[in-house]
């Protein structure tokens, strides 16, 4: 349904051209949930925004690549044609529900506006549809809530309203840009549960962008791991978590606190900073921070290599070399702890 081919997004800033998205290819099938994870500044949000062409131009430019959605290249479409797709076929929900609703209009009006932007419908029908949507996203007493202003809703309820607005035209693809980051943990779980239910009911494909690996584990069928504007590992969720074959993903998973770990043990953070995207390092972008680094890594820029079962990883180490190196690192660490 959605296929992104070798997409590049550059941001033209005062300090030079930032390669925010640097040759990304992936696909999303109808009804599938794809998670995109990565640390801050890895290009996840820019990628998500470029799917709907919402990056402000300038500074953003699209020097290369294609975004094929339902046999159309979105990069070729005019603003007017894009508007017909936005909200209608691709919808988006945002990180901060507190500021994503227009504070001067009632929730009902905003929902009805979203419906009536793309469908010719009488006010009355639109209101009924709005009611139904609010019911679907689990807002109690939807009838009286239609006449409330956004500031009368809590964060979790606003995120529900935003999901309702996103679903207004039954889009084929829903892009969720860190939808639970601004919510507390219990509400996070509710919203994730809601997104699952919604997907079952409406058959919407979801791209979920997050830096929270827990969210991805709960929701996604497939995961893309992004680092410095590139996809460094891709595969079905189980493979990414249990058969990691790329040092960055491995380090990322290791840096999570675990219920079964020793409480006196420090979290294993990834050393160093993400690379400067104006002037990326030679060879592999992760090499300056990589515990697996070899001399070759400083020279060769790895491309995504198929490891079978749709699992791809960008590392020059072969599977056996990778496993060997991993055990070596773990052994060294164990010795360090014992001493």
């Amino acid at each position, binding site marked *: 349904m959605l296929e992104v081919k070798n997409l590049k997004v550059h941001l033209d800033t005062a300090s030079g051209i930032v390669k925010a998205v640097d040759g990304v290819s992936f696909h999303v099938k109808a009804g599938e949930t794809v998670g995109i994870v990565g640390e801050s500044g890895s290009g996840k949000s820019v990628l998500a925004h470029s799917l709907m062409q919402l990056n402000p131009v300038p500074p953003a430019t699209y020097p290369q690549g294609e975004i094929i959605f339902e046999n159309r290249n979105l990069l070729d479409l005019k603003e007017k044609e894009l508007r017909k797709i936005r*909200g209608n076929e691709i919808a988006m929900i945002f990180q901060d529900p507190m500021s994503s609703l227009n*504070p001067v209009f009632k929730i009902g009006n905003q929902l009805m506006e979203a419906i009536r932007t793309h469908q010719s419908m009488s006010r009355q029908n639109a209101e009924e549809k709005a009611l139904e949507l609010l019911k679907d996203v689990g807002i109690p007493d939807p009838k009286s809530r239609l006449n409330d202003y956004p500031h009368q809703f809590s964060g979790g309820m606003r995120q529900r309203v935003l999901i309702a607005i996103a679903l*207004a035209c039954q889009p084929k693809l829903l892009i969720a840009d860190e939808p639970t980051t601004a919510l507390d943990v219990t509400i996070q779980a509710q919203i994730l549960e809601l997104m699952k239910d919604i997907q079952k009911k409406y058959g919407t494909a979801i791209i979920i962008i997050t830096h929270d690996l827990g969210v991805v584990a709960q929701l996604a069928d497939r995961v893309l791991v992004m680092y410095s504007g590139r996809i460094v590992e891709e595969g079905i969720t189980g493979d990414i978590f249990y058969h990691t074959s790329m040092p960055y993903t491995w380090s990322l998973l290791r840096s999570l606190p675990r219920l079964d770990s020793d409480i006196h043990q420090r979290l294993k953070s990834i050393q160093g900073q993400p690379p400067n995207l104006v002037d990326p390092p030679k060879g592999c972008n992760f090499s300056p921070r990589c515990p697996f680094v070899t001399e070759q890594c400083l020279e060769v820029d790895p491309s995504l290599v198929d490891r079978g079962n749709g699992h791809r990883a960008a590392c020059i180490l072969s599977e056996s070399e990778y496993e060997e190196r991993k055990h070596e690192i773990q052994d060294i660490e164990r010795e360090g702890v014992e001493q």
Partner: protein
Amino acid sequence: MFKNKRNLLAAGVLLLIIVATITASLWLKFPPTHIDPEARLLSPSGKNWFGTDHFGRDIFGLTIVAARVTLFVGVVVALLSTVLGTITGLIAGYYKKAEFIIMRIIDGMLAFPALLLALALVAALGGNVTNIIIALTFAFWPVMTRIVRSAVLQVNNIQYIEAAKTTGTGDLVILFRYILPNVLSPIIVQGTFIFAKAILAEAALSFLGVGIDPSTPTWGTMLQESQVYITIAPWFSIFPGVAIVITVLALNMLGDGLRDAFDPHKKNQKKSTKKLFRNRKQKYA
């Protein structure tokens, strides 16, 4: 907003002035243009509440009638500069390319002191009501453009604008339904201030003798005529002056009141608490 006594007072005073000046011909004892050479420069008395001027005209009547032209100039200048300033400000704040051109022109206009600009324009165009309005609008709308633009820039960065774009909303709808309502309060406050400033500026221009023709009574022209007599007939200057002070003060107070009333966070708050309370009562009844 009229629960606040200050707002009520301001609105009441303005309403009183407007009603008085519109209905003046129905209840004024003396037509304000009635000349009586016998009664020149009389001090305030039961017959002439505010005294009389150098032609023996009743100053009370003149002050009331003069409000017509003064308020008309104020209203029209405030409306014109608000509309022009809002449109240019919205465009400049929303479209990056237009911003540069519009804001450089506005900066150029702002480089002149407003009153001096108006003075030069009236001097060039000639002093009548239309020209005063044109000149004052020209002097005041750049300020409005700046204020609207900066408000738009702020609102434009809030996520609901981006959220609106993701639902396929067009630029015009975003400008007028998402941005405009959210920048309305500074516009309204500035609009009432421009109203007040326009009244002051009209008086100043008339006082300097480049404003409205002295035969048309406005508070400004009255002040100008009275300056010669200020030592022997101070009431001639005081009453139009007080009228200006009261009107301008009331307008400024009203501007503040409107700002509070248009704040969406304050609106509906009381109503919702009431509703909540009612629901609770029903629940436990």
